[in-house]
């Protein structure tokens, strides 16, 4: 969705040979992030940064963002911009609550997917068949999704819960913990040793209180990667997003692939809604529950450069910032600013080695500003912490928008010739 103003005919540069495979880059990134967090928590004296409780909350909050982001990934890889993710997610929350309070959590998941997919179908009909502008259709679906769920919840939930904005409670999933392992990790975490305790805390958060939905969601990331990048179907789907005319001339059914992609996208967004409803702290439909998470999912997808791995990183980052705020408040989030300063220092050294003086200077300026912010404030106001994803996305877009690469025909209306 990044458009440059001048449409210069440019020859795409030959792809740089990657010396390190993608999964290794991911592993290095994770290790680097943990190292950064552990140094930060040592320097600032906030062990909560890497505690198991924070991690557990972060995972729960990251799930809906991740699912919405996956939904965005599917649609945009087929060339359909899906601003309607938010509306589809709202439909999903309603569906999950409606089926969930009657038939349990598995039915909730199923209904959420169906309701979200219905929203996706509507988006596909409008954008693919009728060639309506994708943004326009998405905005309309957001309006419609909010309206339909409000109407239905007044009609069906009000008699039961006596609150038109809330559903009756939904039965939660059983959660699983790796008993012995978690205890051992807990001992390590309590030891407060640099790095080891931090890794133990994060791992313990990841293996405690895991619901089937969490596992399913995590599995959906490699599954999406496999389907979109390693199968014939995925190749065709992505070719539709890159150049539908060329794809059509090769016999790919453009409309069919776009339809499938957008319906799957809606289903995933709906599942994201279910993740909100089935969150152990919530367990019901609540009006306004999504709170723009569909948009944040979209942001996570852009952060991840329209790739599943990067999307996972973006969702983890946004979920983490949210979880930290919820568990420990604004002063620990301020400690993260300190972490960013350390990160920028590393970047400065790296840019100096590569002799990129301008970027190095810019990074120094930002680092100094953030450090001044860190020492002058006591805490980050809670009002802003919830919007950290928004700020990070703007910053990423401002810095790296030239390097992000979205599908070439993303957002363009295609009509069969």
């Amino acid at each position, binding site marked *: *969705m*990044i*458009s*440059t*103003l*001048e*449409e210069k005919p440019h020859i795409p540069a030959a792809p740089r040979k990657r010396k390190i495979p993608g999964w290794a880059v991911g592993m290095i990134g994770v290790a680097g992030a943990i190292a950064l967090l552990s140094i930060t928590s040592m320097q600032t004296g906030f062990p909560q940064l890497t505690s198991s409780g924070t991690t557990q909350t972060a995972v729960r909050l990251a799930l809906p963002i991740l699912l919405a982001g996956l939904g965005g990934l599917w649609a945009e890889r087929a060339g359909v*911009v899906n*601003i309607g993710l938010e509306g589809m997610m709202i439909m999903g929350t309603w569906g999950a609550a409606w089926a969930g309070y009657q038939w349990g959590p598995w039915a909730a998941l199923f209904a959420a997917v169906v309701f979200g997919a219905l929203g996706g179908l*509507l988006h596909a009909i*409008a954008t693919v068949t*009728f*060639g*309506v*502008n994708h*943004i*326009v*259709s998405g*905005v*309309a*679906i*957001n*309006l*419609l*999704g*909010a*309206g*339909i769920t*409000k*109407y239905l919840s*007044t*009609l069906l939930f009000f008699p039961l819960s006596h609150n*038109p904005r809330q559903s009756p409670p939904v039965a939660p999933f059983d959660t699983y913990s790796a008993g012995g392992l978690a205890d051992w990790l807990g001992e390590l975490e309590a030891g407060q040793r640099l790095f080891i305790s931090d890794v133990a805390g994060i791992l313990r958060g990841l293996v405690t209180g895991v619901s089937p939905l969490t596992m399913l969601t995590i599995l959906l990331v490699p599954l999406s990667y496999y389907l979109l990048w390693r199968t014939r179907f995925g190749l065709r789907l992505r070719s539709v997003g890159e150049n539908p005319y060329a794809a059509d001339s090769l016999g790919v059914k453009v409309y069919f692939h776009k339809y499938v992609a957008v319906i799957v996208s809606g289903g995933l967004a709906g599942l994201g809604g279910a993740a909100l409803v089935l969150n152990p702290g919530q367990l019901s439909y609540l009006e306004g529950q999504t709170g*723009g998470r569909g*948009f*944040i999912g*979209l*942001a996570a997808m*852009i952060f991840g450069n329209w790739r599943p791995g990067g999307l996972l990183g973006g969702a983890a980052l946004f979920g983490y910032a949210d979880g930290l705020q919820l568990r420990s408040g604004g002063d620990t989030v301020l400690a993260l600013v300190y972490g960013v300063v350390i990160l920028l220092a590393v970047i400065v050294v790296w840019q100096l080695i590569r002799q990129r003086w301008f970027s190095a200077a810019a990074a120094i300026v930002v680092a100094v500003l953030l450090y001044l912010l860190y020492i002058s404030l006591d805490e980050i*106001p809670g*009002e*802003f912490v*919830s*919007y950290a*994803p*928004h*700020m990070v*996305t*703007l910053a990423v*877009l*401002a810095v790296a*928008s*030239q390097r992000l690469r979205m599908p070439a025909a993303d957002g363009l209306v295609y009509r069969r010739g």
Partner: protein
Amino acid sequence: MGHLRGKLLPPALAIVFSMLLCGVALIISGANPLRAFGVMVTQVGKGTTFIDIINSTGIYYIAALAVAIGFQMNLFNIGVEGQYRVAAVIAAVVGGSVALPPGIHTMVIIIVAAIAGAAWAAIPAILKVTRGVNEVISTIMMNGLAIGLSAYLIRQDIFGELRGNNIRTPEIPESGWMPGISFGGGGTMFGFLFVAIALGIGYWIMMNRTRFGFELRASGESSTAASAGGVNAKKMVLVSMLLSGAIAGLISLPELLGRDHTFSLNFTAGIGFSGIAIALLGRNHPGGIAFGALLWAFLDKSGLALDNVGVPREIVTIMQGSIVLSVVVAYEVVRRFELAAEQRRVGRELGTVPEVVA
């Protein structure tokens, strides 16, 4: 005649279609659709409803104008929502903390609101022209930040004060109010509505009678043709975004200057998104937008009356959503139909294309 038909038919079809859709929904949920629609129409004459509708028409009109300026050049300012929220809180804070003579005080509030809206819109505009960041994503992010910023600014330790159970900005003194036209029991019409009408006229003149408007529309029709004709694309983006933001800044002023005199947590949200829908409905034409805004306001207010006869008022939101979606589909279908007819006509006149044998 055919020209007019092509413009009026789609919205009419969309309204009929969504009425049918909602009628079916009402029947399924066990209500009588005819009675519901009847209540929606008859409620207009009761109490202050008519003036209320006119008042919110004005508000929606300003919002849709703000959106339409961007739409004219295919610039999607989704951020009207955030721009008017930020402008409202800043205008309320400034208006409540200065002492000025009447008239000047009001003018200062209006100017501050416009500048605040434009400033909030400037961030995505600058990101777009310098870094190539798509405005849809950046304005969505700015909307989120606007909610955070406004909540922060009305905190008690910043600018807010606690009245009853509600946190709000200090009240604007009477010198900063804008008097309305009272209709006794019929309600009071916001004085700011005249500004809205003036904005509509100004918008029409700008689009149709100025070079800027021509360049704006040309950029919307074809950005490549416009830049070949010497239109500076970056300047157009920047100026239209700032203008859009400045008008967005005025959205909350009818309520702020005419009724509430303070920004609180009860602040009316979502007008920016309604503005997008109304601009689509009215096809960016000042007259069409006025009609769309009136329809939107009418539907909004009829929700209350529907509640009284036991129909959930949210059916109105569904109706609004389905009107927007079906109107854009209808416009697109009519456009394709006319395009095909045009091609046939040109083909006949040139004699190059033989009549298609059916």
